[in-house]
Protein backbone atom coordinates (compact mmCIF):
# COMPACT_ATOMS: atom_id res chain seq x y z
CA UNK A 1 0.00 0.00 0.00
CA UNK A 2 1.21 3.49 -0.87
CA UNK A 3 0.61 5.06 2.55
CA UNK A 4 -0.07 8.75 2.98
CA UNK A 5 0.15 8.42 6.76
CA UNK A 6 1.63 5.64 8.82
CA UNK A 7 1.37 5.24 12.60
CA UNK A 8 4.12 2.96 13.93
CA UNK A 9 3.80 1.63 17.50
CA UNK A 10 2.28 4.90 18.65
CA UNK A 11 1.62 5.42 22.35
CA UNK A 12 -0.31 8.45 23.58
CA UNK A 13 -0.70 9.40 27.22
CA UNK A 14 -2.92 12.06 28.71
CA UNK A 15 -1.56 12.78 32.16
CA UNK A 16 -0.74 9.34 33.53
CA UNK A 17 -3.43 7.56 31.58
CA UNK A 18 -2.37 5.63 28.53
CA UNK A 19 -4.99 6.29 25.86
CA UNK A 20 -3.29 4.48 22.99
CA UNK A 21 -0.61 1.83 23.34
CA UNK A 22 1.68 0.55 20.66
CA UNK A 23 -0.82 1.22 17.91
CA UNK A 24 0.18 0.71 14.27
CA UNK A 25 -2.05 1.61 11.36
CA UNK A 26 -1.70 3.14 7.89
CA UNK A 27 -3.93 5.22 5.65
CA UNK A 28 -3.58 4.96 1.87
CA UNK A 29 -2.81 7.85 -0.44
CA UNK A 30 -5.46 9.37 -2.71
CA UNK A 31 -8.40 7.53 -1.14
CA UNK A 32 -11.10 8.08 1.43
CA UNK A 33 -10.28 6.33 4.66
CA UNK A 34 -12.93 6.13 7.36
CA UNK A 35 -12.02 5.54 10.97
CA UNK A 36 -14.81 3.77 12.83
CA UNK A 37 -15.20 2.84 16.47
CA UNK A 38 -17.44 3.28 19.50
CA UNK A 39 -17.23 6.40 21.67
CA UNK A 40 -14.08 6.57 23.76
CA UNK A 41 -12.11 4.12 21.62
CA UNK A 42 -9.38 6.67 20.90
CA UNK A 43 -10.24 7.72 17.33
CA UNK A 44 -9.88 11.43 18.03
CA UNK A 45 -6.78 10.87 20.14
CA UNK A 46 -5.24 8.95 17.25
CA UNK A 47 -6.10 11.62 14.68
CA UNK A 48 -4.93 14.40 16.97
CA UNK A 49 -1.41 13.02 16.66
CA UNK A 50 -1.64 14.65 13.22
CA UNK A 51 -2.31 18.20 14.44
CA UNK A 52 -0.11 18.22 17.50
CA UNK A 53 -2.96 18.08 20.01
CA UNK A 54 -2.04 14.55 21.17
CA UNK A 55 1.38 14.22 22.66
CA UNK A 56 3.11 11.16 21.27
CA UNK A 57 4.81 9.36 24.15
CA UNK A 58 6.20 6.53 22.04
CA UNK A 59 6.50 5.39 18.44
CA UNK A 60 6.42 7.44 15.26
CA UNK A 61 3.99 8.92 12.79
CA UNK A 62 5.18 9.13 9.21
CA UNK A 63 3.80 11.45 6.60
CA UNK A 64 4.94 9.69 3.43
CA UNK A 65 8.55 9.03 4.38
CA UNK A 66 8.86 12.05 6.67
CA UNK A 67 8.72 11.61 10.43
CA UNK A 68 6.04 14.06 11.58
CA UNK A 69 8.05 15.00 14.65
CA UNK A 70 10.76 16.44 12.40
CA UNK A 71 8.35 19.04 11.00
CA UNK A 72 7.61 22.42 12.55
CA UNK A 73 3.99 23.38 13.20
CA UNK A 74 3.88 25.47 10.02
CA UNK A 75 5.50 22.78 7.88
CA UNK A 76 3.04 20.22 9.20
CA UNK A 77 0.09 22.52 8.53
CA UNK A 78 1.23 22.90 4.91
CA UNK A 79 1.01 19.13 4.45
CA UNK A 80 -1.91 18.02 6.64
CA UNK A 81 -5.12 20.01 6.92
CA UNK A 82 -7.08 19.04 10.00
CA UNK A 83 -10.67 19.94 10.84
CA UNK A 84 -11.48 19.09 14.46
CA UNK A 85 -14.90 17.84 15.53
CA UNK A 86 -17.85 19.95 16.73
CA UNK A 87 -16.85 23.54 17.39
CA UNK A 88 -18.18 25.43 20.36
CA UNK A 89 -16.86 28.67 18.95
CA UNK A 90 -18.73 30.30 16.12
CA UNK A 91 -16.84 33.40 15.07
CA UNK A 92 -18.71 36.56 14.10
CA UNK A 93 -16.51 37.20 11.09
CA UNK A 94 -17.18 37.17 7.34
CA UNK A 95 -16.96 33.83 5.53
CA UNK A 96 -14.00 34.96 3.44
CA UNK A 97 -12.07 36.06 6.52
CA UNK A 98 -12.52 32.63 8.08
CA UNK A 99 -11.43 30.85 4.90
CA UNK A 100 -8.37 33.14 4.78
CA UNK A 101 -7.28 31.72 8.14
CA UNK A 102 -6.43 28.57 6.16
CA UNK A 103 -3.45 30.49 4.76
CA UNK A 104 -2.04 31.05 8.26
CA UNK A 105 0.92 28.66 7.81
CA UNK A 106 2.02 30.47 4.65
CA UNK A 107 1.92 34.06 5.86
CA UNK A 108 4.89 35.95 7.21
CA UNK A 109 4.95 38.12 10.28
CA UNK A 110 2.98 40.90 8.57
CA UNK A 111 0.16 38.42 7.85
CA UNK A 112 -0.34 40.02 4.44
CA UNK A 113 -1.67 37.70 1.75
CA UNK A 114 -0.13 37.54 -1.71
CA UNK A 115 -1.87 36.69 -4.99
CA UNK A 116 -1.17 32.98 -4.49
CA UNK A 117 -2.90 33.09 -1.10
CA UNK A 118 -5.89 34.97 -2.48
CA UNK A 119 -6.21 32.45 -5.31
CA UNK A 120 -6.11 29.54 -2.85
CA UNK A 121 -8.90 31.18 -0.84
CA UNK A 122 -11.01 31.82 -3.96
CA UNK A 123 -10.48 28.25 -5.19
CA UNK A 124 -11.37 26.77 -1.82
CA UNK A 125 -14.62 28.76 -1.60
CA UNK A 126 -15.47 27.77 -5.17
CA UNK A 127 -14.74 24.10 -4.50
CA UNK A 128 -17.28 23.93 -1.69
CA UNK A 129 -19.74 26.26 -3.40
CA UNK A 130 -19.72 29.18 -0.97
CA UNK A 131 -18.27 31.94 -3.18
CA UNK A 132 -21.57 33.82 -3.08
CA UNK A 133 -21.51 33.90 0.70
CA UNK A 134 -18.08 35.42 1.14
CA UNK A 135 -19.36 38.55 2.86
CA UNK A 136 -21.93 36.82 5.05
CA UNK A 137 -21.07 36.47 8.73
CA UNK A 138 -20.29 32.90 9.77
CA UNK A 139 -22.51 33.07 12.85
CA UNK A 140 -25.55 33.84 10.69
CA UNK A 141 -25.24 30.63 8.61
CA UNK A 142 -26.97 27.27 9.09
CA UNK A 143 -24.97 24.39 10.58
CA UNK A 144 -24.47 22.68 7.22
CA UNK A 145 -23.26 25.78 5.40
CA UNK A 146 -21.06 26.70 8.34
CA UNK A 147 -19.43 23.30 8.17
CA UNK A 148 -18.74 23.88 4.48
CA UNK A 149 -17.07 27.18 5.34
CA UNK A 150 -14.77 25.41 7.80
CA UNK A 151 -14.02 22.77 5.16
CA UNK A 152 -13.16 25.59 2.74
CA UNK A 153 -10.79 26.95 5.38
CA UNK A 154 -8.88 23.67 5.59
CA UNK A 155 -8.94 23.36 1.79
CA UNK A 156 -7.30 26.78 1.56
CA UNK A 157 -4.35 25.24 3.40
CA UNK A 158 -3.53 23.61 0.07
CA UNK A 159 -2.62 20.24 1.61
CA UNK A 160 -2.62 16.87 -0.09
CA UNK A 161 -4.00 15.21 3.03
CA UNK A 162 -7.21 16.25 4.73
CA UNK A 163 -8.29 14.93 8.11
CA UNK A 164 -11.86 15.57 9.20
CA UNK A 165 -13.00 14.49 12.63
CA UNK A 166 -16.75 13.79 12.56
CA UNK A 167 -17.58 16.36 9.88
CA UNK A 168 -21.28 15.47 9.76
CA UNK A 169 -22.18 15.47 13.46
CA UNK A 170 -25.36 17.47 14.22
CA UNK A 171 -26.09 18.06 10.52
CA UNK A 172 -29.41 17.19 8.90
CA UNK A 173 -29.44 14.37 6.27
CA UNK A 174 -29.30 16.76 3.30
CA UNK A 175 -26.30 18.61 4.73
CA UNK A 176 -24.64 15.28 5.57
CA UNK A 177 -25.10 14.13 1.98
CA UNK A 178 -23.57 17.34 0.68
CA UNK A 179 -20.53 16.94 2.90
CA UNK A 180 -20.13 13.32 1.71
CA UNK A 181 -20.30 14.46 -1.92
CA UNK A 182 -17.70 17.06 -1.14
CA UNK A 183 -15.36 14.42 0.28
CA UNK A 184 -15.79 12.34 -2.88
CA UNK A 185 -14.99 15.33 -5.08
CA UNK A 186 -11.85 15.98 -3.02
CA UNK A 187 -10.77 12.39 -3.64
CA UNK A 188 -11.43 12.91 -7.33
CA UNK A 189 -8.98 15.82 -7.19
CA UNK A 190 -6.35 13.42 -5.87
CA UNK A 191 -6.54 14.36 -2.21
CA UNK A 192 -6.14 11.88 0.61
CA UNK A 193 -9.14 12.09 2.93
CA UNK A 194 -9.18 10.60 6.42
CA UNK A 195 -12.35 11.00 8.39
CA UNK A 196 -14.18 9.78 11.47
CA UNK A 197 -17.86 9.00 10.94
CA UNK A 198 -20.51 7.69 13.29
CA UNK A 199 -23.03 6.92 10.58
CA UNK A 200 -22.02 3.37 9.57
CA UNK A 201 -24.27 3.32 6.48
CA UNK A 202 -22.73 6.48 5.09
CA UNK A 203 -19.26 5.26 6.02
CA UNK A 204 -19.87 2.06 4.06
CA UNK A 205 -21.12 4.18 1.18
CA UNK A 206 -18.10 6.39 0.69
CA UNK A 207 -15.13 4.57 2.23
CA UNK A 208 -12.38 3.10 0.09
CA UNK A 209 -10.51 2.03 3.18
CA UNK A 210 -11.83 1.35 6.68
CA UNK A 211 -10.10 1.18 10.04
CA UNK A 212 -12.16 -0.22 12.90
CA UNK A 213 -11.15 0.50 16.48
CA UNK A 214 -12.53 -1.30 19.52
CA UNK A 215 -13.47 -0.23 23.05
CA UNK A 216 -10.10 -1.61 24.12
CA UNK A 217 -8.51 1.09 21.93
CA UNK A 218 -6.99 -1.40 19.51
CA UNK A 219 -7.49 -1.76 15.78
CA UNK A 220 -9.83 -4.66 15.03
CA UNK A 221 -9.54 -4.37 11.28
CA UNK A 222 -7.89 -2.17 8.68
CA UNK A 223 -8.09 -2.66 4.96
CA UNK A 224 -10.06 -2.15 1.77
CA UNK A 225 -13.66 -1.24 2.55
CA UNK A 226 -15.17 -4.31 0.89
CA UNK A 227 -12.98 -6.69 2.88
CA UNK A 228 -13.49 -4.94 6.21
CA UNK A 229 -17.27 -4.76 5.68
CA UNK A 230 -17.36 -8.48 5.19
CA UNK A 231 -14.97 -9.27 8.04
CA UNK A 232 -17.58 -8.81 10.79
CA UNK A 233 -15.31 -6.36 12.66
CA UNK A 234 -17.83 -3.54 12.49
CA UNK A 235 -20.65 -5.73 13.75
CA UNK A 236 -18.69 -6.84 16.79
CA UNK A 237 -17.21 -3.39 17.52
CA UNK A 238 -20.64 -1.75 17.58
CA UNK A 239 -22.79 -4.75 18.51
CA UNK A 240 -24.90 -4.35 15.36
CA UNK A 241 -26.01 -6.50 12.44
CA UNK A 242 -25.35 -5.87 8.78
CA UNK A 243 -27.54 -6.36 5.78
CA UNK A 244 -27.02 -5.78 2.07
CA UNK A 245 -29.89 -4.10 0.29
CA UNK A 246 -30.39 -3.00 -3.26
CA UNK A 247 -31.17 0.70 -3.17
CA UNK A 248 -30.69 3.51 -5.66
CA UNK A 249 -29.53 1.05 -8.30
CA UNK A 250 -26.68 -0.47 -6.32
CA UNK A 251 -25.91 -2.76 -3.42
CA UNK A 252 -25.67 -0.88 -0.12
CA UNK A 253 -24.69 -1.88 3.39
CA UNK A 254 -27.21 -1.24 6.14
CA UNK A 255 -26.31 -1.59 9.80
CA UNK A 256 -29.10 -2.07 12.34
Amino acid at each position, binding site marked *: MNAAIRFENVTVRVGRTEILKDLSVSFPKGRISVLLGPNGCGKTTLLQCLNGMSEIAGGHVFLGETDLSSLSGNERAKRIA*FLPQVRSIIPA*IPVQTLVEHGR*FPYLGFSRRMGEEDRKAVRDAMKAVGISDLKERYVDTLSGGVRQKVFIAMVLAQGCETLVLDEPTTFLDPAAQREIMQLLCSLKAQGKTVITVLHDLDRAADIADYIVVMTKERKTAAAGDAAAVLKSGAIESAFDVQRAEVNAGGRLRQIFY
Partner: protein
Amino acid sequence: MKKKNTLLFIILIFLLLVSAFLGLLFGSVDIPASDTLKVLTGRLREGTSYILIATVRLPRVLGCIGAGVGLATAGVILQNVMNNSLASPNTIGVNSSAGLAVMLSMVFFPEAVGARPVFAFAGALITSLLIFALAWGSGASRTTVILAGITVSSFFSAGINLIKILDDDIALNINTFMIGSVAGVSMKDIRLPLIIILLVFLTACLFSGHLNVLALGDDIAGSLGMNVNAVRFFLLTLSSLLAGAVISYTGLLSFVGLIVPHICRRLFGSDNRILIPASGLLGASYVLLCDLLGRLIAAPYELPAGIIMSFIGGPFFLFLLLKRKGGRRVAA
Protein backbone atom coordinates in the same frame (compact mmCIF):
# COMPACT_ATOMS: atom_id res chain seq x y z
CA MET B 1 -19.07 46.63 5.14
CA LYS B 2 -15.74 48.43 4.66
CA LYS B 3 -17.58 51.74 4.16
CA LYS B 4 -19.56 51.19 7.35
CA ASN B 5 -16.38 50.39 9.28
CA THR B 6 -14.57 53.44 7.89
CA LEU B 7 -17.47 55.66 8.90
CA LEU B 8 -17.56 54.15 12.38
CA PHE B 9 -13.82 54.69 12.76
CA ILE B 10 -14.18 58.34 11.74
CA ILE B 11 -16.93 58.73 14.35
CA LEU B 12 -14.73 57.08 17.01
CA ILE B 13 -11.78 59.35 16.19
CA PHE B 14 -14.05 62.41 16.29
CA LEU B 15 -15.52 61.25 19.62
CA LEU B 16 -12.02 60.88 21.06
CA LEU B 17 -10.95 64.34 19.90
CA VAL B 18 -14.08 65.95 21.31
CA SER B 19 -13.79 64.03 24.62
CA ALA B 20 -10.12 64.99 24.96
CA PHE B 21 -10.89 68.65 24.23
CA LEU B 22 -13.74 68.66 26.77
CA GLY B 23 -11.39 67.03 29.27
CA LEU B 24 -8.99 69.95 28.85
CA LEU B 25 -11.77 72.52 28.93
CA PHE B 26 -13.74 71.58 32.03
CA GLY B 27 -12.58 71.53 35.63
CA SER B 28 -12.76 73.39 38.91
CA VAL B 29 -11.37 76.50 37.22
CA ASP B 30 -13.04 77.81 34.07
CA ILE B 31 -10.66 78.13 31.17
CA PRO B 32 -12.04 79.71 27.99
CA ALA B 33 -12.09 77.44 24.96
CA SER B 34 -10.04 80.03 23.07
CA ASP B 35 -7.25 79.84 25.69
CA THR B 36 -7.34 76.03 25.58
CA LEU B 37 -6.91 76.11 21.82
CA LYS B 38 -4.08 78.62 22.12
CA VAL B 39 -2.26 76.41 24.63
CA LEU B 40 -2.74 73.37 22.41
CA THR B 41 -1.41 75.18 19.34
CA GLY B 42 1.54 76.63 21.27
CA ARG B 43 0.40 80.24 21.05
CA LEU B 44 -0.03 80.60 24.80
CA ARG B 45 2.93 79.55 26.94
CA GLU B 46 2.40 81.40 30.20
CA GLY B 47 -0.27 82.33 32.72
CA THR B 48 -2.73 80.36 34.83
CA SER B 49 -4.49 78.74 31.88
CA TYR B 50 -1.22 77.44 30.47
CA ILE B 51 -0.01 76.10 33.82
CA LEU B 52 -3.34 74.46 34.58
CA ILE B 53 -3.57 72.79 31.21
CA ALA B 54 0.07 71.75 30.92
CA THR B 55 0.54 70.44 34.44
CA VAL B 56 -2.91 69.29 35.52
CA ARG B 57 -5.38 68.71 32.73
CA LEU B 58 -3.11 67.48 29.95
CA PRO B 59 -1.56 64.73 32.12
CA ARG B 60 -5.07 63.82 33.25
CA VAL B 61 -6.39 63.63 29.69
CA LEU B 62 -3.36 61.63 28.56
CA GLY B 63 -3.81 59.41 31.62
CA CYS B 64 -7.43 58.78 30.67
CA ILE B 65 -6.49 57.98 27.07
CA GLY B 66 -3.76 55.58 28.23
CA ALA B 67 -6.11 53.92 30.72
CA GLY B 68 -8.86 53.48 28.14
CA VAL B 69 -6.57 52.14 25.43
CA GLY B 70 -4.73 49.87 27.85
CA LEU B 71 -7.69 48.33 29.64
CA ALA B 72 -9.88 47.94 26.54
CA THR B 73 -7.05 46.25 24.64
CA ALA B 74 -6.26 44.03 27.63
CA GLY B 75 -9.94 43.07 27.69
CA VAL B 76 -9.98 42.12 24.01
CA ILE B 77 -6.85 40.01 24.45
CA LEU B 78 -8.10 38.24 27.59
CA GLN B 79 -11.52 37.48 26.09
CA ASN B 80 -9.85 35.85 23.09
CA VAL B 81 -7.08 34.03 24.92
CA MET B 82 -9.44 32.66 27.57
CA ASN B 83 -12.24 32.19 25.09
CA ASN B 84 -14.49 33.79 27.62
CA SER B 85 -16.60 36.82 26.80
CA LEU B 86 -16.83 37.73 30.49
CA ALA B 87 -13.07 37.93 30.97
CA SER B 88 -11.50 41.33 31.56
CA PRO B 89 -8.74 42.63 33.82
CA ASN B 90 -11.14 43.28 36.69
CA THR B 91 -13.43 40.24 36.37
CA ILE B 92 -10.58 37.73 36.54
CA GLY B 93 -8.78 39.47 39.39
CA VAL B 94 -5.88 40.91 37.38
CA ASN B 95 -6.70 44.47 38.49
CA SER B 96 -6.61 43.75 42.19
CA SER B 97 -3.45 41.65 42.04
CA ALA B 98 -1.72 44.43 40.10
CA GLY B 99 -3.10 46.86 42.70
CA LEU B 100 -1.68 44.81 45.56
CA ALA B 101 1.67 44.71 43.78
CA VAL B 102 1.58 48.51 43.42
CA MET B 103 0.89 48.80 47.16
CA LEU B 104 3.84 46.53 47.90
CA SER B 105 6.09 48.67 45.73
CA MET B 106 4.92 51.73 47.70
CA VAL B 107 5.81 49.98 50.95
CA PHE B 108 9.23 48.78 49.89
CA PHE B 109 10.23 51.44 47.34
CA PRO B 110 8.20 54.51 48.28
CA GLU B 111 10.29 56.91 46.18
CA ALA B 112 10.61 54.74 43.08
CA VAL B 113 7.62 55.74 40.92
CA GLY B 114 9.15 53.77 38.04
CA ALA B 115 8.97 50.55 40.05
CA ARG B 116 5.16 50.69 40.24
CA PRO B 117 4.39 49.61 36.66
CA VAL B 118 6.96 46.83 36.97
CA PHE B 119 5.37 45.53 40.16
CA ALA B 120 1.89 45.94 38.69
CA PHE B 121 2.90 43.96 35.60
CA ALA B 122 4.31 41.14 37.74
CA GLY B 123 1.11 41.03 39.82
CA ALA B 124 -1.09 41.06 36.72
CA LEU B 125 0.91 38.34 34.97
CA ILE B 126 0.92 36.01 37.99
CA THR B 127 -2.87 36.22 38.32
CA SER B 128 -3.44 35.89 34.55
CA LEU B 129 -1.42 32.67 34.52
CA LEU B 130 -3.11 31.43 37.69
CA ILE B 131 -6.60 31.97 36.30
CA PHE B 132 -5.60 30.55 32.93
CA ALA B 133 -4.16 27.44 34.58
CA LEU B 134 -7.40 27.07 36.53
CA ALA B 135 -9.52 27.44 33.41
CA TRP B 136 -7.56 24.92 31.37
CA GLY B 137 -6.07 22.66 34.02
CA SER B 138 -9.35 21.88 35.76
CA GLY B 139 -11.60 22.34 32.75
CA ALA B 140 -13.60 24.89 34.75
CA SER B 141 -16.59 26.45 33.01
CA ARG B 142 -16.46 30.05 31.93
CA THR B 143 -18.68 31.20 34.74
CA THR B 144 -16.55 29.27 37.26
CA VAL B 145 -13.49 31.08 35.95
CA ILE B 146 -15.19 34.41 36.62
CA LEU B 147 -16.24 33.27 40.09
CA ALA B 148 -12.63 32.26 40.75
CA GLY B 149 -11.58 35.71 39.49
CA ILE B 150 -13.96 37.39 41.91
CA THR B 151 -12.60 35.26 44.76
CA VAL B 152 -9.01 36.08 43.82
CA SER B 153 -10.04 39.73 43.55
CA SER B 154 -11.51 39.78 47.07
CA PHE B 155 -8.39 38.10 48.43
CA PHE B 156 -6.04 40.67 46.91
CA SER B 157 -8.34 43.57 47.86
CA ALA B 158 -8.13 42.38 51.45
CA GLY B 159 -4.34 42.42 51.05
CA ILE B 160 -4.47 46.01 49.76
CA ASN B 161 -6.58 47.13 52.71
CA LEU B 162 -4.36 45.27 55.17
CA ILE B 163 -1.24 47.00 53.87
CA LYS B 164 -2.88 50.39 54.16
CA ILE B 165 -3.95 49.65 57.76
CA LEU B 166 -0.49 48.37 58.73
CA ASP B 167 1.42 51.12 56.95
CA ASP B 168 -0.54 54.31 57.24
CA ASP B 169 2.39 56.34 55.89
CA ILE B 170 1.77 55.25 52.31
CA ALA B 171 1.04 58.38 50.30
CA LEU B 172 -2.17 57.06 48.85
CA ASN B 173 -5.86 57.68 49.23
CA ILE B 174 -7.02 54.10 49.66
CA ASN B 175 -10.63 54.83 48.72
CA THR B 176 -9.65 56.51 45.48
CA PHE B 177 -7.15 53.76 44.69
CA MET B 178 -9.71 50.99 45.20
CA ILE B 179 -12.29 52.74 43.02
CA GLY B 180 -9.84 54.01 40.44
CA SER B 181 -9.26 57.59 39.40
CA VAL B 182 -7.08 59.68 37.13
CA ALA B 183 -7.34 62.80 39.26
CA GLY B 184 -4.04 64.36 40.26
CA VAL B 185 -1.79 62.33 37.98
CA SER B 186 1.38 64.10 36.90
CA MET B 187 3.52 63.67 33.82
CA LYS B 188 6.07 61.93 36.03
CA ASP B 189 3.46 59.33 37.05
CA ILE B 190 2.31 58.53 33.55
CA ARG B 191 5.42 58.85 31.37
CA LEU B 192 6.64 55.25 31.67
CA PRO B 193 3.14 53.67 31.75
CA LEU B 194 2.12 55.57 28.63
CA ILE B 195 5.21 54.43 26.74
CA ILE B 196 4.46 50.83 27.77
CA ILE B 197 0.79 51.14 26.78
CA LEU B 198 1.62 52.64 23.39
CA LEU B 199 4.24 50.00 22.56
CA VAL B 200 2.12 47.09 23.75
CA PHE B 201 -0.97 48.40 21.97
CA LEU B 202 0.99 48.55 18.69
CA THR B 203 2.34 45.05 19.32
CA ALA B 204 -1.21 43.81 20.00
CA CYS B 205 -2.31 45.31 16.66
CA LEU B 206 0.55 43.46 14.94
CA PHE B 207 -0.52 40.19 16.55
CA SER B 208 -4.24 40.66 15.95
CA GLY B 209 -4.10 38.06 13.15
CA HIS B 210 -2.69 35.52 15.61
CA LEU B 211 -5.42 36.46 18.05
CA ASN B 212 -8.03 35.79 15.36
CA VAL B 213 -6.71 32.29 14.76
CA LEU B 214 -6.37 31.57 18.48
CA ALA B 215 -9.99 32.67 18.92
CA LEU B 216 -11.08 29.75 16.74
CA GLY B 217 -10.03 27.38 19.53
CA ASP B 218 -6.83 25.57 20.42
CA ASP B 219 -7.45 22.62 18.15
CA ILE B 220 -7.98 24.68 15.00
CA ALA B 221 -5.15 27.10 15.84
CA GLY B 222 -2.83 24.13 16.43
CA SER B 223 -3.95 22.50 13.20
CA LEU B 224 -3.10 25.70 11.33
CA GLY B 225 0.46 25.44 12.61
CA MET B 226 0.33 27.88 15.51
CA ASN B 227 2.39 27.17 18.61
CA VAL B 228 -0.68 27.71 20.76
CA ASN B 229 0.95 27.72 24.20
CA ALA B 230 3.74 30.10 23.23
CA VAL B 231 1.34 32.53 21.52
CA ARG B 232 -1.08 32.40 24.43
CA PHE B 233 1.66 33.08 26.98
CA PHE B 234 2.93 35.97 24.87
CA LEU B 235 -0.56 37.47 24.59
CA LEU B 236 -1.20 37.08 28.32
CA THR B 237 2.07 38.90 28.90
CA LEU B 238 0.85 41.73 26.66
CA SER B 239 -2.47 42.03 28.49
CA SER B 240 -0.68 41.97 31.85
CA LEU B 241 1.69 44.72 30.72
CA LEU B 242 -1.28 46.83 29.67
CA ALA B 243 -3.32 46.26 32.83
CA GLY B 244 -0.26 46.70 35.05
CA ALA B 245 0.80 49.94 33.36
CA VAL B 246 -2.69 51.44 33.75
CA ILE B 247 -3.26 50.34 37.33
CA SER B 248 0.12 51.73 38.41
CA TYR B 249 -1.31 55.26 38.11
CA THR B 250 -5.12 54.90 38.15
CA GLY B 251 -5.79 52.31 40.81
CA LEU B 252 -8.44 49.67 40.20
CA LEU B 253 -10.50 51.08 37.33
CA SER B 254 -13.27 48.63 36.58
CA PHE B 255 -15.23 47.35 33.62
CA VAL B 256 -13.50 49.27 30.79
CA GLY B 257 -12.03 46.01 29.51
CA LEU B 258 -15.44 44.40 29.55
CA ILE B 259 -17.83 47.06 28.25
CA VAL B 260 -15.75 48.56 25.47
CA PRO B 261 -14.80 45.33 23.63
CA HIS B 262 -18.43 44.22 23.79
CA ILE B 263 -19.76 47.41 22.27
CA CYS B 264 -17.07 47.31 19.58
CA ARG B 265 -17.83 43.66 18.82
CA ARG B 266 -21.44 44.65 18.27
CA LEU B 267 -20.36 47.43 15.92
CA PHE B 268 -17.51 45.77 14.03
CA GLY B 269 -17.81 41.97 14.52
CA SER B 270 -15.05 39.92 16.09
CA ASP B 271 -12.16 40.43 13.66
CA ASN B 272 -9.41 41.52 16.04
CA ARG B 273 -7.57 43.42 13.33
CA ILE B 274 -10.43 45.91 13.53
CA LEU B 275 -11.56 45.24 17.08
CA ILE B 276 -8.30 46.17 18.80
CA PRO B 277 -7.88 49.66 17.28
CA ALA B 278 -11.62 50.30 17.61
CA SER B 279 -11.62 49.25 21.27
CA GLY B 280 -8.55 51.41 21.90
CA LEU B 281 -10.31 54.47 20.47
CA LEU B 282 -13.62 53.86 22.22
CA GLY B 283 -11.89 52.90 25.49
CA ALA B 284 -10.00 56.19 25.52
CA SER B 285 -13.20 58.19 24.92
CA TYR B 286 -15.09 56.15 27.50
CA VAL B 287 -12.58 56.83 30.29
CA LEU B 288 -12.33 60.50 29.29
CA LEU B 289 -16.11 60.91 29.38
CA CYS B 290 -16.48 59.04 32.69
CA ASP B 291 -13.76 61.22 34.19
CA LEU B 292 -15.45 64.33 32.80
CA LEU B 293 -18.81 63.23 34.17
CA GLY B 294 -17.20 62.67 37.56
CA ARG B 295 -15.88 66.21 37.47
CA LEU B 296 -19.18 67.78 36.44
CA ILE B 297 -21.89 65.72 38.10
CA ALA B 298 -21.24 66.91 41.67
CA ALA B 299 -19.23 70.09 40.98
CA PRO B 300 -17.46 71.67 42.75
CA TYR B 301 -16.70 68.22 44.22
CA GLU B 302 -15.16 65.51 42.08
CA LEU B 303 -16.23 61.91 41.87
CA PRO B 304 -13.51 59.46 40.88
CA ALA B 305 -13.96 58.15 37.31
CA GLY B 306 -14.09 54.63 38.76
CA ILE B 307 -17.40 55.34 40.49
CA ILE B 308 -19.04 56.39 37.24
CA MET B 309 -17.56 53.33 35.51
CA SER B 310 -18.88 50.99 38.18
CA PHE B 311 -22.34 52.55 37.98
CA ILE B 312 -22.35 51.87 34.23
CA GLY B 313 -20.31 48.68 34.26
CA GLY B 314 -22.13 46.84 37.05
CA PRO B 315 -25.51 46.67 35.33
CA PHE B 316 -23.80 45.96 32.00
CA PHE B 317 -21.95 42.98 33.46
CA LEU B 318 -25.18 41.71 34.98
CA PHE B 319 -26.88 42.09 31.61
CA LEU B 320 -24.14 40.01 29.96
CA LEU B 321 -24.38 37.32 32.64
CA LEU B 322 -28.14 37.01 32.29
CA LYS B 323 -28.00 37.15 28.51
CA ARG B 324 -25.46 34.37 28.25
CA LYS B 325 -26.99 31.92 30.71
CA GLY B 326 -23.90 29.77 30.31
CA GLY B 327 -23.96 29.88 26.52
CA ARG B 328 -20.67 29.56 24.74
CA ARG B 329 -21.05 31.84 21.79
CA VAL B 330 -19.73 35.38 21.67
CA ALA B 331 -16.10 36.21 22.03
CA ALA B 332 -14.65 34.35 19.10
